[in-house]
């Protein structure tokens, strides 16, 4: 297992390099000199030149890239032009809030999606199956920003049950934070929950038709044991794959959800930075989110190998083939 983890760690190094390469060149392509943007239109030519030297912009492109890589390896993701603060500090301030939102959404999506998928599979062609699968299909087609607005309209504006913006404050008690968390987390959980329900149903249907499930039933095992211990356990690998994809996608979803609900996380910070043309913050955050994305995928791959030991013994080239 350790060998597999080390192999996967080595494999993601080129990906991380390409991520850094893309982010570096995007920074250089964006119109406008970062030093001028940082100092504003009133800045003198000398001050701009000084800032260019400070930012290393007067160096050759390959040298700039080496400086950039060195900065990243030392945890320096650049400087925000707007706040004039290190991006790392701003990320550390906001990232935990995104993690809270993403974790709450993932737990909610798993708790709703997987049982629905299992029940739908065991009661195939029942009314429950039809209704939930139609809802799941609508769920995966849902524009998340629209769903967010409709939830605000219904639960905050019309019914007045829940707050529509912000994160609340721990000083007002944990309930205040939970109340603020409900709408954004339900909104963000909708698509993953729908995906989990669909993949769980389809994976379970494949498994419960297998002979060993019939054998388990013939042995007189309780139905719940047959379903959860024998069928569900074997239906897990494709579900874990989708959970991994959705876990990484939550970061994308969070960008929109946080914007709608003014949740003070990374997503809202990126959108605000775009509106303020704070490219320093945009690039640093983008690189950070991409790194998190890669690391999340790595963790999912390892988890997948734990559940499905055959993966550990599959050659890299064979896995890449089907891509």
């Amino acid at each position, binding site marked *: 297992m350790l060998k597999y983890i080390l192999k996967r760690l080595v494999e993601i190094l*080129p*990906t*991380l*390099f*390409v*991520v850094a*390469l*893309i982010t570096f060149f*995007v920074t250089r*392509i*964006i*119109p406008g000199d970062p030093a001028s943007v940082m100092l504003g239109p009133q800045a003198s030519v000398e001050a701009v030149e000084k800032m260019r030297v400070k930012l290393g912009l007067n160096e050759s492109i390959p040298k700039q890239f080496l400086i950039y890589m060195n900065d990243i390896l030392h945890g320096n993701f650049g400087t925000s032009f707007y706040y004039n603060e290190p991006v790392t500090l701003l990320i550390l301030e906001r990232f935990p809030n995104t993690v809270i939102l993403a974790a709450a959404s993932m737990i909610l999506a798993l708790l709703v999606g997987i049982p629905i998928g299992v029940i739908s599979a065991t009661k195939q062609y029942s009314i429950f199956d039809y209704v939930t699968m139609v809802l799941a*299909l*609508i769920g*995966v*087609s*849902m*524009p998340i*920003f*629209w*769903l967010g*607005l*409709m939830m*605000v*309209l219904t639960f905050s*504006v019309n019914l007045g049950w829940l707050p529509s913006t912000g994160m609340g404050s721990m000083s007002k008690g944990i309930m205040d934070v939970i109340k603020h968390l409900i709408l954004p987390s339900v909104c963000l959980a909708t698509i993953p929950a729908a995906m989990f329900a669909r993949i769980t149903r389809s994976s379970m249907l494949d498994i419960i038709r297998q002979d060993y499930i019939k054998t388990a039933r013939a042995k007189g095992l309780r139905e719940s044991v047959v379903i959860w211990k024998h069928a569900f356990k074997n239906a897990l690998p494709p579900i874990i794959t989708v959970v991994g994809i959705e876990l*990484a*996608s939550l*970061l*994308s979803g969070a*960008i*929109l959800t946080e*914007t*709608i609900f003014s949740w003070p996380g990374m997503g809202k910070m*990126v*959108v605000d930075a*775009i*509106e303020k043309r704070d*490219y320093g913050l*945009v690039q640093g955050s*983008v690189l950070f*989110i*991409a*790194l998190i*994305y*890669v690391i999340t*995928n790595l963790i999912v791959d390892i988890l997948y190998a734990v559940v499905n030991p055959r993966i550990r013994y599959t050659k890299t080239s064979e896995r*890449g*083939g*089907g*891509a």
Partner: protein
Amino acid sequence: MEMIDENKLMQLERKANSPWARLKRNKTAVIGMVIVIAAVCMAIFAPLLAPYDPNAMDISKTFLKPGTPGHILGTDEFGRDLLSRIIYGSRISILVAAGATLVGGTIGIILGIIAGYKEGILDTVIMRFMDGMFAFPFVLLSIVLMTVLGQGLENVIIAIGIANVPGYARIARGQVLVVKGEEYCQAVKSLGASDFHLIFNHIIPNILSPVIVYATMNLAGSIISEATLSFLGLGIQPPTASWGNILRSGRDYLLTSPHIATYSGLAILLAVLGFNLFGDGIRDAFDPKMK
């Protein structure tokens, strides 16, 4: 008794098992297909279907409620007819979805074929680059590309198209690796066929099915991407109507005139649902396991 013509029977069986026949038997896919056709017709015939000019302002008719005579879905903050704007908005959505799928598909397939056919260092370089692009969440990659390219319809198509490239490249590469190992490809090669001949006459026709399936599903994703970019203010700019920017302006009037955000969002949901249903149907129709 009349002899059963075996050839005819086999022909009928083949016809019944053809992807098109399987697609027609799939009710949800047919519903999806109807929605897709309706959306495409709405986009093509927008000038005939829209009751008003989508950009014609009338300050005396701002924020009219849905059901007002002459304005079935009401009006927006400038007194523009919402139905007309949604009908014209379909043009942008369909155009961007088709354009981005074409851009992403073309570049991705070319890269995938080169990587899969040549293998070696070229394959490694291309696919590691694709992995790097895949590491960016889709929305984020589109946002980054839009900040580089600037606003405008063409740039929206290019940004979403480029963000689509890695998906096509992976599928095409995987298929090429399978197809080029098939006996008929080996035979053609041993007869002295050029790489060009082999790729265009034997490999491309045999990798198209999964690519078409992926493209159909990708259309739905591209509609959402366009709406997302416009909603964030990075995509199509007003006064041009797009479902995303109608929703963006509707957000500002959510408390007083929720119909603007509600109907524009419903249009996106319905279109995406249609493309997803149709895409699911196409996938099932082409899936040999479903025969």
